[in-house]
């Protein structure tokens, strides 16, 4: 607005200057006519002609001024008019896609690229957004029956997202249309989180709770006067409350991850430093379990795009599992290697233990919530059944992959493939 104001002021000033100039022109014209009249002694009709010419000359600057006024108005609106659609699209934080009459993408802003990988100008829109409601939306706007339309669109995979999508035509007869996505995932996630949390928590917390209440009953009844038993039961109860606390921590951590909007993390993470600090922080646990952690890092910079805290949690969970469940192997190898193989070059972080390994039929499923290969073992190791689920969730957000290789008796290798963009 401020710019428009100064522009208007500038126009007025130039206009006044023009008027001033035209006054001089007028004066010069009159002097010229008078001089010509005085010197040459022309007939009356020539004088009339000269006056007419003078009027024309006086008209000319006013015409130019009018022209200038118009162009002034044009620059005034021109700030908006000239504004490239691209800049406007870039300034919009929501995903925005501009497309033409044939539903071909003309332009998509950065938010759209980030939200929907694999779109490019020239691509056909209905091929990418195949959901029936999106197809109907595009059809209705392109048919010209309605100027704009709104639908709710949800994507279930790879991460659940919900959008309110509005499509409308742009300007008059530009043959361009625009699609704007308003992210509604958060509200939906909160709903889901509540439901999931209650379902999971109530189910998983009931077991330790039942055991605690059982021991309380015993302590008040038969074991009332038995100090040895009391001590033992109190110890068990403490373990159970500890387990409940861990469970709640993990559930909250998972829920918090699910709450975060789906965004490709913009920052870079130094994997060498991250993995090193994970190994350091788990040093006590490794010693306690009698496990030696070996490092095998490749030379050179090991930066990948990602969120440091989240990746720290990934490697922490994996290394913790390796130390706990691969205890019998006595050592754990952490290696970082570059994998330049097509189609996605990146960095592989592999955490390998030499313990009992995981039976083949469990491998595809161990990232499911509360899926345990061996319930007893998991309980004694203070596992909550959520660790790998958290790992998988973080990696999905990073566009990374987790592959698990294991042979019974030969340990297990968890490898994280992080794309280097």
């Amino acid at each position, binding site marked *: 607005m401020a710019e428009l104001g100064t522009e208007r002021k500038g126009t007025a000033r130039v206009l006044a200057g023009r008027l001033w100039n035209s006054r001089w022109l007028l004066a010069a014209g009159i002097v010229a006519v008078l001089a010509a009249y005085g010197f040459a002694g022309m007939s009356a009709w020539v004088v009339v002609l000269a006056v007419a010419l003078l009027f024309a000359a006086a008209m000319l600057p006013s015409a130019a001024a009018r022209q200038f006024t118009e162009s002034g108005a044009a620059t005034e609106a021109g700030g908006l008019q000239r504004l490239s659609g691209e800049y406007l699209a870039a300034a919009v934080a929501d995903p925005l896609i501009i497309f033409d009459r*044939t*539903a071909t993408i003309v332009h998509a802003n950065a938010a759209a690229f980030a939200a929907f990988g*694999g*779109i*490019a100008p020239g*691509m*056909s829109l*209905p*091929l*990418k*957004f*195949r*959901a*029936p409601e*999106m*197809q109907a939306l595009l059809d209705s706007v392109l048919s010209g029956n309605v100027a704009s339309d709104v639908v709710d669109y949800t994507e*279930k*995979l*790879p991460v659940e997202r919900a959008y309110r999508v509005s499509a409308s035509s742009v300007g008059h007869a530009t043959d361009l249309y625009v699609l704007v996505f308003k992210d509604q995932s958060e509200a939906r996630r909160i709903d889901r989180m509540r439901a999931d949390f209650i*379902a999971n928590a109530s189910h998983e917390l009931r077991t330790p709770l039942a055991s605690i209440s059982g021991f309380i009953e015993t302590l008040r009844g038969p074991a009332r006067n038995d100090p040895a038993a009391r001590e033992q039961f109190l110890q068990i109860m403490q373990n159970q409350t500890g387990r409940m606390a861990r469970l709640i921590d993990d559930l909250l951590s998972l829920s918090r991850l699910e709450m975060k909007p789906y965004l490709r993390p913009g920052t870079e993470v130094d994997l060498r430093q991250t993995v090193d600090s994970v190994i350091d922080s788990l040093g006590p646990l490794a010693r306690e379990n009698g496990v030696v952690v070996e490092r095998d890092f490749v030379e050179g910079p090991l930066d990948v795009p990602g969120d440091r805290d989240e990746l720290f949690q990934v490697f922490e969970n994996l290394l913790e599992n390796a130390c706990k469940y691969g205890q019998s192997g006595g050592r754990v190898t952490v290696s970082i290697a570059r994998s330049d193989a*097509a*189609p996605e070059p990146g960095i592989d972080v592999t955490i390998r233990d030499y313990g009992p390994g995981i039976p*083949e*039929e*469990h*491998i*595809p*499923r161990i990232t*499911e*919530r509360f*899926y345990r290969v061996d319930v007893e073992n998991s309980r004694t190791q203070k596992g909550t059944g959520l660790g790998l689920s958290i790992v998988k969730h973080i990696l999905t957000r990073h566009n990374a992959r987790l592959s698990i290789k294991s042979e019974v008796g030969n340990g297990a290798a968890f490898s994280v493939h992080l794309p280097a963009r």
Partner: protein
Amino acid sequence: MQSVHIVSAYDEELKYLSKRIAAMGGHAERMVEQAISALVNADPGLAEKVIRDDIVLDEGQREIDDKAIVIIAKRQPMATDLREIVGAIRISADIERVGDLGKNVAKRVVAVTDGRQPTSLFRGLEALADLALTQLKEVLDVYASRSVEKIGFVRDRDDQIDAMYTSLFRELLTYMMEDPRNITPCTHLLFCAKNIERIGDHATNIAETIYYIVTGDQMPAERPKGDKTDKIVLPASQPAK
């Protein structure tokens, strides 16, 4: 598609074909998604809707077949165009089968959810469906973007699906051995799992067709079968846990 023909109506016709394929694909994705959610949430109403929706895919396939044949007769396509058209016929057939499989899952909803089952029964199935749907989505995305270099992933995914299916098979057998009352729902779930696994196979087929459309070569054939359920035997004397 990529090229521009002198007769613009020809381009329009080819575009129309791919647009119809995408619409069918979106519809099939939605059907499978809803069938699974009907199964997990015991929602016979939604299952009913999925069963009704299948007719759209049948019509879609018929329409694509008709259109494709008319284009072949009228335009005498060569090279890429011909592959595009033949590919459309093949892909639409695969998508139609995906829809049928989704419909079959929906049909079993009532039988499975008859007595309320524990959610742990469905968790594995849900994960399997997620894998299959992701694969289908990726394949159809490649159809849109034509970036065939991404197709390698599809086969990786197929191996994952097979592994998951094998694991699920085992789990369901165990449930049946634990309690004979589980046999009815678990048998239905076994078929559901098989259906979902088949969806993955159809997605792989579509990927191969796309590869053929874009490159003109057949996708190199290296497909070790990861489905090992044909060898699973649980000992009859295994104690119920």
